[in-house]
């Protein structure tokens, strides 16, 4: 029954530390790996981390939209593979300026199919996207015949390219992030997403077009899956029949690690980016320190665990500290 004894200025520093706890954890992590490997704390390495986190991060940004309305999209991996198969098999000879928008549209269409079943026929999102996960991959496998799909040299060059000193993957990541961030925080559509996630019935009564919001959100997830797929394939240079397979797990993990709730209404894309980068940082640190591969999952899971533990204890303390009071106490 003890309350947090923090008064005046002391309290505001406590609040500051608590609010930034995830960042502090991140810094501690960087310091630890930095001590163990002298090549870890370099700009190039950090750039590497972000490059590698980019495709998961972008798809997870799309997933954030979906989770915010209390939905789920398990089909992103299949979406990625369709995009890869179409690009590699049918659009190989088109210039990037045409083929990329085209496959992004395919991603959008895939999302729209999910959305149609979810909003029009009211099939549960979990099952809809579980089925399209199978169907989508089945169709793409039919095209590729299980074979490795290769891409044009321009696509591969794009994967290695930099513009103004910034690698292409980071450009993609940054643009998607900024667009998503602004959409969620600065537009009516974005705020309505939060409203729908908190209480769809109330949102309907308030006059929000709930269906339209839900529909758009799955389309956004589809587009993000396509863009993430493009970035990933431009890096790994080929798409095997397992391209994107079971990607839903790391993607949802990054999103949830970033503080977005599976039940809707809570979270945001900044956290998602943080979640994606955090996981990649740990994987990178392990390779940098030449750790035993058997230890990777053990270490990664422990660090994610600590991160979430800090986050949830912080939230409960913050809630207590920031509670509105009905009495003004004299100190």
């Amino acid at each position, binding site marked *: 029954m003890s309350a947090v004894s923090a008064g005046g200025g002391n309290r505001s520093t406590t609040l500051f530390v608590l609010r930034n706890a995830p960042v502090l954890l991140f810094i501690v992590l960087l310091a630890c790996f930095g001590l163990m490997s002298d090549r870890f704390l370099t700009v190039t390495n950090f750039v590497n981390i972000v490059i590698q986190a980019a495709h998961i991060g972008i798809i997870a940004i799309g997933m954030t939209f979906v989770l915010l309305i209390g939905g789920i999209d398990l089909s992103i991996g299949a979406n990625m593979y369709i995009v890869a198969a179409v690009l590699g098999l049918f659009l190989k000879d088109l210039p990037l300026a045409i083929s990329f928008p085209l496959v992004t549209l395919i991603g959008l269409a895939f999302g729209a199919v999910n959305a149609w079943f979810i909003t029009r026929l009211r099939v549960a999102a*979990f099952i809809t996207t579980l089925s399209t996960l199978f169907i989508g991959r089945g169709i793409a496998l039919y095209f590729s015949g299980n074979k490795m799909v290769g891409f044009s040299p321009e696509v591969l060059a794009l994967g290695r390219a930099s513009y103004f000193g910034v690698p292409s993957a980071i450009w993609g990541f940054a643009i998607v992030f900024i667009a998503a961030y602004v959409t969620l925080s600065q537009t009516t559509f974005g705020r309505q997403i939060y409203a729908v996630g908190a209480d769809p019935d109330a949102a309907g009564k308030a006059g929000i077009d709930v269906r339209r919001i839900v529909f758009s959100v799955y389309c956004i997830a589809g587009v993000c899956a396509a863009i993430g797929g493009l970035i990933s394939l431009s890096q790994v240079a080929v798409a095997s029949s397992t391209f994107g397979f079971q990607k839903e797990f790391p993607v949802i993990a990054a999103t949830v690690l970033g503080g977005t709730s599976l039940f809707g209404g809570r979270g945001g894309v900044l956290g998602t980016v943080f979640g994606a980068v955090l996981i990649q940082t740990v994987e990178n640190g392990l390779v940098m320190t030449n750790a035993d591969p058997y230890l990777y*999952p*053990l270490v990664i899971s422990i660090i994610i665990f600590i991160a979430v533990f800090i986050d949830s204890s912080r939230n409960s303390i913050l809630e207590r500290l920031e509670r509105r009071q009905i009495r003004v106490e004299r100190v």
Partner: protein
Amino acid sequence: MSSTQSITPGSAAEATRPQRSFAVRLLMSEYLVLVLTAIYFLVMWALVPSIATADTLLDILAAMMPLLVVAIGQTFVLIVAGIDLAAPSILAAASVAGASMMTGEGGFALFTGVPIGVGILAFVGVGLLIGLLNGVCVTRLGMPPFIVTLTTMMFFSGFALFYTSALTDDGSSFGDLPSAFVAIGQGTWHGVPYSLALAGAVMLVAHLTLSRTVFGSWLYAIGRNPRAAAISGVPVRRAVLWAFVISGLCGGIASIIYTGRLETGTPVLGQRILLDIVGSAVIGGVSLFGGKGRVTWTLYGVLFLSVVDKGLQLLGLDLASVFAIKGLVILSAAVLDAVRHRLTLRG
């Protein structure tokens, strides 16, 4: 595929409406998934007659038992609006831990001659322990179930691999298990597989617990509104903890059956079946948002997925077709369910 429990308001007014045809009533009932399974079965029968042989049917039944047991465990967690992603790692960790106790080949030979009970204890113990860990993190540390079980899944899957590589020569699995143990997964008693009896017992206990006991009602209440439940004196934290422990226990038991069937303790056991576990419960009608679910629904879901899979296996098609057909079957089932739901609402 949601269906409101039998307490749909629609049924209240049932008597006042003209009697519907049998087909419509079936479509509207909670047995829809069973009906769909039967339809699928008939279609398959036309394509591959061997699906209807007694052997194949018994195969389907025996094969679905371990999945059923884990899915029942998952149902408990889903009812309290949680999720247990650690289930596959429980299968794997229990499998290698239990198997290593019972084999001289790389495992702890010191138990040679000791009853296989020790091994079984290890299976169950690992399941309980991981379940307890998940439960403690969720209820005491206030962490979200999704991420807690995701990390425990990574950790214990990784640990199972590590453990196996450290103890065995080829680093891949524990074989050469005692035949008495293997019998649990493979043996039969007057034609009835032991695994069927074991899973049947688990199902019965789980069903009674959920539908008849105070504890079961508490779980539903927590899933429906945890705050209202807590204010009504439900020991929310304790009950949620138990839900995870039960899920872990079920994982341990399922691992016994799987390991016995394969005669091998393997660290990759169940690594690909997470979506099958959660999916079968959800297809049966259990809600991911808590408060809604039944053991029988999960049974229907597991049966549905198992029959769909067996049919596809028998057809022996290429991967693309298998994926496409499986997806289409699930989707059509879901669409039918949605249509049915709307009909019930319209009254």
